[in-house]
């Protein structure tokens, strides 16, 4: 019986009277774009399906993405995919937690493909991607009205965020101070209140007042810790000593030595502007730390060997009346400035100008040679 059937089948082929369609083959698929490194929760993931259909048929795709803690365990993944797409390119945001609120530790991505005749790729392509915790983001900043001078407060700001855990889970921050030898690192930081930015709910801001007790290089290390990870950021601060004040503007014009400025009328010698870290002129109101420059004025009249200080002349101006001298007299009017740090101006009395830091652009003494006319 069987033998007879085979004979009949073979006969049919030979005779060409038996017809059958070409057999449709399944498409082959691969997933492209697998990230080289572990994903962070909240990352944006892009994967592309690539297929090869031996018959040249059009292929459609079906993606399913499952949030998992351990894809090898029985309940390691959510039973329902969090994302299902019928596209060639899958774009998704890595979820933060599974349906059971456990933090996502991996993703299971399943790609299926079907050609236009219904042939489905076998097996389906599957990808398991590790997902790790995203550490908090932390940015530090600082500002000071006081030129970062020792003993003055510096406002330090920390802005923290955590894309997967939320900023609230990161606080409180840990602050550690490292200072130069002899520095008081224990009492250098004090809390400061700071309003949150209502337009930026993804971040929290914190502030401290940092008051370094001495000059030198300081480091502030701030650590932000979420439930799984932490990040530390160092901020270097170079704290300086109070520099000397600098004469920035003088009136009237200072003549080039040995030229004398001819004066016919009472004249107000003036220092309208002094630049300094803390003791400037004009003084800044409403500041308990900023002070004002100290001025001393002296005069060297004809016949005097050195300049003689004018008692009571302590403001930024000095009224000079040439009528107090003889016509033709050459008189020297001198101003010297100081800030809160006592620093002797050790230049010779004969030197018309002087800089205690040997910096021509930062003078603490200036002298007008005046010819009474």
């Amino acid at each position: 019986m069987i033998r007879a059937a085979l004979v009949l089948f073979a006969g049919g082929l030979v005779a060409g009277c038996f017809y059958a369609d070409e057999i449709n083959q399944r498409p082959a698929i691969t997933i492209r774009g697998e990230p080289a490194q572990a994903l962070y929760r909240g990352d944006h993931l892009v994967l592309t399906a690539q297929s090869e259909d031996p018959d040249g048929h059009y292929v459609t795709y079906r993606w399913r993405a499952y949030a998992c803690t351990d894809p090898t365990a029985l309940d390691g993944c959510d039973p329902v995919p969090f994302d299902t797409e019928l596209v060639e390119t899958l774009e998704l945001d890595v979820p933060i937690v599974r349906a059971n609120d456990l933090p996502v530790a991996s993703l299971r991505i399943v790609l299926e493909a079907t050609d236009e005749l219904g042939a489905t790729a076998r097996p389906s392509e599957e990808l398991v991607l590790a997902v790790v915790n995203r550490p908090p983001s932390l940015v530090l900043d600082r500002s000071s009205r006081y030129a970062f001078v020792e003993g003055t407060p510096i406002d330090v700001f920390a802005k923290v965020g955590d894309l997967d855990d939320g900023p609230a889970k990161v606080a409180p921050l840990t602050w550690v101070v490292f200072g130069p030898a002899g520095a008081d690192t224990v009492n250098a930081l004090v809390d400061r209140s700071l309003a949150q930015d209502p337009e930026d709910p993804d971040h929290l801001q914190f502030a401290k007042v940092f008051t370094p007790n001495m000059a030198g290089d300081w480091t502030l290390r701030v650590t932000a810790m979420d439930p799984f990870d932490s990040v530390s950021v160092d901020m270097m601060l170079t704290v300086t000593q109070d520099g000397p004040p600098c004469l920035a503007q003088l009136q009237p014009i200072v003549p080039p030595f040995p030229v004398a400025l001819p004066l016919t009328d009472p004249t107000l010698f003036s220092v309208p502007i002094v630049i300094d870290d803390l003791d400037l002129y004009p003084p800044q109101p409403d500041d308990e730390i900023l002070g004002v420059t100290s001025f001393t004025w002296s005069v060297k009249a004809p016949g005097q060997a050195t300049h003689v200080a004018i008692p009571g002349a302590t403001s930024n101006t000095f009224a000079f009346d040439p009528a107090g001298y003889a016509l033709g007299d050459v008189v020297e009017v001198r101003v010297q400035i100081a800030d809160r740090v006592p620093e002797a101006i050790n230049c010779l009395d004969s030197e018309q100008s002087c800089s205690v830091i040997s910096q021509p652009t930062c003078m603490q003494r200036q002298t007008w040679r005046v010819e009474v006319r």
Partner: protein
Amino acid sequence: MTTSRWLMITAALAAASLVGCAGSADGANDECNVSLLVTPSTPIAGPDSEVTVTASTQSAPGVLAFDWRVTYMSAPIPFDVSAPNESEITFTALEPGIYEVTLDIGSGSICPQQSIRVNVLPSGSTTLDVRLHVTPPITIDVPPIDRRIRVFGGTDYDLGPVVLDPGVRAIGNVRTAGNVGVPAYLAFVPDGMSEAVVESFSDAAGAYSTQLLNSDHEVLVIPASSLLAPRKLPWTTTQTTLMVDGGTLIAGLVRHGGVAIAGARVQLMIDGVPSTLGTTAGDGSFTVRGVPSSGAMVAVEVQPPVSTGLPRLEAFGTFDLGTSLAITYSSLLTTRNLAGTQVRRNGSIVPGAKVTVVGELGAIGTVVTGATSATASGVTRVTVTADAGGTLPSLIAPAAALSAVVTVDAASQDLAVAALDLTTGVPSTISAPSMTTKLTTVLGEAPLDGARLDLVPTGALALAGVPTRQLTGDGNGAVVISFPSGSKYDAYFSDPAGRSGQRVVLDLTSATVGTSYTLGAAVNVSGTLRVTGNPNRIRGASVQILCMTCSGLDRDRPLAEDASDEAGDFVLAVPDPGTM
């Protein structure tokens, strides 16, 4: 092609070209430009005070979206959109002060945010005209300005942008007709801004270089050489030479009665321009160089040698400088010598006391040229130091009613002013009483901690060259003032914190000083410095408010001063002129 079709195509091409221009961000002319117009320009506060702000745009293509904000003291206030396309708003200015209007425009291109500050005045505001003097920092080479501004009573006022002219570089030479360079002092005074003086010096070769406003100036040139006459010359921006010469030799004779005075220094001021300095010879004759002009007001100054005891002489007149000046001290003016006079305080001698004899004398002589005669006045100022026994060495002074300013201890400013009448003789002692200490309190709405008091000496102290004293109040505004006996001061009370305006009390003495002084309210005058063509802010410029009507040193004493900040902004607290 018909003419109409040709025109249509041409028009279409032109339109396309225009569209292309408007959309381009490269051309400076194509940048979106927004301006705001306020009506009325200076509103008066009140419930019926409606302020309209209208936006005008250029090169802003597409349908524009206007996003307006109005704030008063940093708080938003309501407004109505009063134009169908939202380009105009109206708000009610209930209170006086500065309202800030900000506009963001959304369009096809990026339009810069615009904001304008609207000064709303109180009803019945009194005004005060003052000078705004700005001296830019030396880091930017821009000339100073000195312009008149108006302060309104009862409200802060924003000047808006205060724009400085970068000016022009004035490079040139001071020289003689023989092309010899002349070192000289130069004072450039711009036309229409006489207080914005720029000083400079020309070097040994006569070369100068300085930055000046781009306008005509008048320049005072005072050569270093006594062979060349100082001059006031016109200067234009294209001018590179300032010519000087010997001027006119002006001669004269100085005598005391009929006796020639040798060694006296003589100088003339001719319409504000000094002559060279001359010194009298043994026969009293002198010459100076100047530039006389017909009808010019001439000030004559003579400084006789100290040994004569004669005062410094001053006379004013329209002298004919083509003829010799006859300068004569009155023969009636005699002198006395205080040698041997002792300085005492409360009966005790004052060793090493410094004594300055001062006095102003009227009609001490005459100055005559031809038919012109002027009476001369005089000022005496002679200083000596007493010996260890408090006894004065030789000190010759006019026999007149004078004053003695005694410095008992310079370091502690222990002074005394004593009447010194030399009319009939020389006193055996000069009494220098102890200082009198007074306490006064500087008040604003409350005691002003850190208040400042500048005591500017007047009378004998001023003649003696005693400098201004600066005192600072304590935390309760209390100031301790030590008055030398017989002293007078002009007192300038101020508040560095800007809470109150300056107050000036003239002729303050120990007898008249009050237990407290209340400073009036202050209003803030603010603004922002800019330089034409320079996008950078001007930090560290000196910004001063100065008196418009004052004279002398008071014209240079600031009512308020500030330094511009990083943004070029400044705020000056000036006395509130008040409201009616």
